[in-house]
């Protein structure tokens, strides 16, 4: 029924991500769209404001490649491993070159939520007696109209583009996720443009068989890109495991600017697309990340026609 939004990653990034845009590639540990990040690097986008609760290895790669002028975040690190050294190099010392705008996790979630709801602010009980409101003047007190209690507020975040990786979508962009949902829904509804990248493009009937599974409706989606393994080295629940070795190895790459440049040359600029990256990674490594089966089971929605 609805028009297809299928696009190649190249076309989706070329048309929907523009220099200077505010871009959110969301996903809390799960479904982080490295494939889109790499295409943004390959197309040499510039002056982006990157948003994300947890700028991890993908943002270290993107910032190391020079696509960003600013980072909006709540926790930066290589989870379970250590630091993001490419980001540290441009944020430490006397003349940091990357602008930082920093919140807490709930603050970032509140910003996306206010963005999705077109609210001028989102109230929350964080930041009392911390230095965060001093470091970031966009964290401000607000007085409750009931009982004069003071809490803090964060402003809406409305990315120009939100990119979400998911297990599956139909061609109209109706997108289903299982496992950790993070704040992808809020980030997508808040955005001007949305790119969904999926492990699998499925028939509309698959989506319609389980409408509660739909996290993002096609209504807000501009492009659907099919990119199996597009979240590697992060994971896609039921499809593949986190490639922990990659995260461990990143420490050494990230520490050394030359090593980082070589890595980008070999793994991003030097491959045409995600298929090339996976070829290079090798089928053996890919296969080792496949989990055994753990089926959800089926529920009955009931056919109501009489």
């Amino acid at each position: 029924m609805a028009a297809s939004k299928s696009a190649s990653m190249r076309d989706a990034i070329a048309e929907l991500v523009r220099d200077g845009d505010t871009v959110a590639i969301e996903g809390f540990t799960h479904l982080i769209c490295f494939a889109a990040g790499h295409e943004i690097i390959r197309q040499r986008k510039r002056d982006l404001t990157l948003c994300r609760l947890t700028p991890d290895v993908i943002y270290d790669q993107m910032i190391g490649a020079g696509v960003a002028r600013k980072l909006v975040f709540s926790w930066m690190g290589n989870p379970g491993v250590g630091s993001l050294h490419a980001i540290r190099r441009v944020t430490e010392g006397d003349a940091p070159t990357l602008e930082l705008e920093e919140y807490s996790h709930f603050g970032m979630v509140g910003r996306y939520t206010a963005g999705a709801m077109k609210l001028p602010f989102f109230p929350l009980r964080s930041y009392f007696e911390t230095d965060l409101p001093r470091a970031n003047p966009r964290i401000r007190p607000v007085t409750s109209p009931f009982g004069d209690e003071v809490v803090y507020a964060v402003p809406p975040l409305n990315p120009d583009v939100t990119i979400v990786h998911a297990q599956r979508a139909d061609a109209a962009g109706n997108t289903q996720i299982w496992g950790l949902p993070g704040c992808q829904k809020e980030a997508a509804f808040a955005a001007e443009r949305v790119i969904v990248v999926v492990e699998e493009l499925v028939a509309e009937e698959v989506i319609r068989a389980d409408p509660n599974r739909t996290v993002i409706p096609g209504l807000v989606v501009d492009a659907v890109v099919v990119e199996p393994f597009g979240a590697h080295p992060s994971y896609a629940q039921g499809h593949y495991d986190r490639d922990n070795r990659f995260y461990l190895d990143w420490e050494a790459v990230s520490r050394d600017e030359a090593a980082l440049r070589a890595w980008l040359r070999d793994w991003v600029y030097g491959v045409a697309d995600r298929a090339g990256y996976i070829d290079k990674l090798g089928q053996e490594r890919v296969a080792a990340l496949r989990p055994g089966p753990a089926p959800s089971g089926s529920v009955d929605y009931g056919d109501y026609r009489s």
Partner: protein
Amino acid sequence: MTGVVAGPFTASEMMIVAAARELAGQRVCFVGVGLPNIAVNLAKLTGAPDLELVYEAGVFGARPARLPLSIGDPTIVTRATAVTSMLELFGYYLQGGLIDVGFLGAAQIDRYGNINTTVIGDYATPRTRLPGSGGACEIAIDARQVFVIVRQSRRSFVERIDFRTSPGNVGGPNGARIRREQGWLGAGPSVVVTDLGVYHFDADGEMRLDSIHPGVTLAQVRDSMAWEPRVADRLAETAPPSPDELRLIRDVLDPEGVYTG
């Protein structure tokens, strides 16, 4: 659609057809069940094939296997593309600005499209306790435009509503300014479809009769409202339901005549 007159039709059928035609070119519609539901589905089958429906109960992309009997009908859930919590429906879809057209009914409506669905009489000691806002106050403020479907009478088209549940063009000429200054997402009511005719709104926010339904006289319209209506310079007669429109309503959308009898 053709211009051929299709023989007798009911006032409800005329209202449905008139509302459906107004939906041409619209994209995302917020629906309750009843006349708006049939109008929206008729529009999808005729002039607005790309219309996307968001049901107030929390359904996007419904594909009902039967005519839903209420907004509490499980048939709108099975085989929908998405269902959603009320927080997301009202927060992300409606207040998020995704809805192009919302439908409202009215117990009372004034010349500026302000609507009462709360009480008749005094608020604390009402003569009639009506349902209240439900989502109407949000639809009136957040939907990009609002279509009103209401049967017209001196009790419903009043000089002064007893309670303002859903703001229309507020106080008239200042309505647009108020909406702008307060950052409302919606532009307010754009169409009122009654059993007697179709109204749009002048730039100063007042309702204007643009067409009267076949067989209805201007005197009848005037007798069915409490204020002297503005009438378009070139008052039209609403094109009657076409055979195709009637066939769709009677055979496909409401074969048992639940809403259109």
